[in-house]
């Protein structure tokens, strides 16, 4: 798996030990197959459940943000063979499973004029490719499905195929609104792919590798055992993280960038002609994409599976990863409940006029940081100061010029 020294405790190695124990039972010729199958099934099961509980968490949190209660009625079904029945509704936590049954049993309507094959293939492609991105995320010190040299490139390559699926969905529906919305979605995705990748380049520049596991290892160690050396705690890392967050929101069609769907304004964008389980697959892929991008953000900027303080290292690394991942998801839900949706021209302008130049400046900033890595003592302060100035001054200057004439708004009332 990884070339790290086996420094972990038993808990750290537990998932691997479990897998090896199962693999050992099987005959030798199928061992390699079982080895990989178990990894795949584990990722599918964990992130399938994670998806299910993300939906319920989102519904409940959004409800709280809007002063509602959210879904709280779904309990356990009453099995007639059981002599007793659990009356408690479990706070509605079984809602996602009820939703799954609903989606599965709904009628699947395909428009008569639709391109049947492509209409069917689009949700399959989008789910398959969004699941593929999980393969290179290091979930723990020893837990990474595939540890490859060019992991980051793989991640973005797998992610870029979702654009194709959106086009297929929009075009094959044979509905002009679907097609128009798909084109809008593509314009958005292509616009934000650039700042997303550019925000990641500084990390590659500093660590000199594309391997996700090595990037996490590079964020190890603590100052005084308390301050972690995560990249988000450097000027260029913080700027990169913010750009990454905004682009990740846009790439996963989340509010405030949910223009492709915009359920209260457009009908449902490229999903107009989808119903039943195919719609559920798109929904699932959207959440998988969001989870994978959050996982990448955690890996690149938030120290991956590293513990925040040295004395907290006894908690297994995969739990830290999941904790940070949940933090990211909750943050995204919070953003969805708080910010208003952008217009399409504002959306593309934000990307091309603001995020892309800022990300490019940030790459230069990271180059400066990398060149001055030998500075110490008072020069360290100079290094931080220059790096901060390089990113903050363009941020303020560009923000001022771009919003000139727009803000602050003045409201006049009729006398």
């Amino acid at each position: 798996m990884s070339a790290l020294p086996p420094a972990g405790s038993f808990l750290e190695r537990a998932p691997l030990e479990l897998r090896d124990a199962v693999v050992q039972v099987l005959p030798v010729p199928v061992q390699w197959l079982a080895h990989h199958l178990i990894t795949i099934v584990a990722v599918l099961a964990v992130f399938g459940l994670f998806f299910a509980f993300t939906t319920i968490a989102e519904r409940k949190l959004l409800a709280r943000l809007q002063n509602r209660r959210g879904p709280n009625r779904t309990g356990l079904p009453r099995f007639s063979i059981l002599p007793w029945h659990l009356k408690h509704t479990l706070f509605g936590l079984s809602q996602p499973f009820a939703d799954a049954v609903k989606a599965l049993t709904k009628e699947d309507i395909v428009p008569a004029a639709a391109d049947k094959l492509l209409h069917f293939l689009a949700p399959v492609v989008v789910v398959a490719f969004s699941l593929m991105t999980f393969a290179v995320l290091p979930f723990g010190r020893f837990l990474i499905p595939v540890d490859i040299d060019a992991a980051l490139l793989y991640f973005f390559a797998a992610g870029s195929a979702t654009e194709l699926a959106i086009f297929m969905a929009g075009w094959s529906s044979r509905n002009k609104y679907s097609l128009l919305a798909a084109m809008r979605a593509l314009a958005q995705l292509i616009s934000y792919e650039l700042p997303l990748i550019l925000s990641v380049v500084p990390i590659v520049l500093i660590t000199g590798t594309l391997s996700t596991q090595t990037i996490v290892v590079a964020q190890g160690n603590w100052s005084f055992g308390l301050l972690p050396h995560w990249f988000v705690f450097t000027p260029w890392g913080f700027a990169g993280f913010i750009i990454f967050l905004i682009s990740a929101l846009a790439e996963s069609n989340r509010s405030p960038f949910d223009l492709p769907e915009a359920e209260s304004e457009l009908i449902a964008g490229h999903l107009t002609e989808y119903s039943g389980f195919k719609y559920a697959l798109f929904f699932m892929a959207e959440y998988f994409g969001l989870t994978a991008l959050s996982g990448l953000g955690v890996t690149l900027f938030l120290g991956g599976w590293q513990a925040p303080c040295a004395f907290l290292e006894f908690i297994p690394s995969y739990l830290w990863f999941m904790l940070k991942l949940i933090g990211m998801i909750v943050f995204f839900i919070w953003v969805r409940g708080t910010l208003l949706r952008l217009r399409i021209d504002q959306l593309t302008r934000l990307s091309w006029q603001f995020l892309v130049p800022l990300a490019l400046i940030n790459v230069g900033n990271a180059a400066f940081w990398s060149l001055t890595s030998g500075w110490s003592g008072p020069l360290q302060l100079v290094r931080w100061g220059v790096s901060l100035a390089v990113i903050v001054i363009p941020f303020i200057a560009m923000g001022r010029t771009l919003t000139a004439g727009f803000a602050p708004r003045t409201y006049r009332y009729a006398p």
Partner: protein
Amino acid sequence: MTVALIFIAVLMLGSAATAMVLRNLIHSALLLIASWAGVAAFYLWAGAEFVAFAQVLVYVGAISMVVLFAVLLTRQNLDDRQPAEPASRARALAAVLIGASVAGVITATVLSTSFKPSAAEAPNATVKQIGLDLMESHGATLLIVGVILTVALLGATVIAATDKKSDPEDAQ
């Protein structure tokens, strides 16, 4: 390993061949993308991870969009199942000539290349090595290619952007 290669080859060539036969341009474009994905699979098979992922990122992710947008924006009627232009003798002759000359060049290159039975040593192709090679010994080439592509992109935009000339004075 050979079985995988045959499978990849069938996927690549099959989808490319079907793309040429089909009348529906969008289907052809999607099959062409499948063929590019097959090329990426071949790179993976050959152990060139970096090139494979770059192939997917650039071709399946980006160039496919350019192709699909071009098809959608230029064709007025997508259900048009007739040949786009009337076939003529001159047109057919030109097509055969160009096809034959391309085939001739490729065949000549294949014939004149001496294929060594096996590489003497496995090339050191880590991502870091590729990056250093690209930036150090091939840095100028990379820059020139970038400039050419940018010029091509700008040229394409200029050609495609046909502003309606409301004022006849602007036509000159």
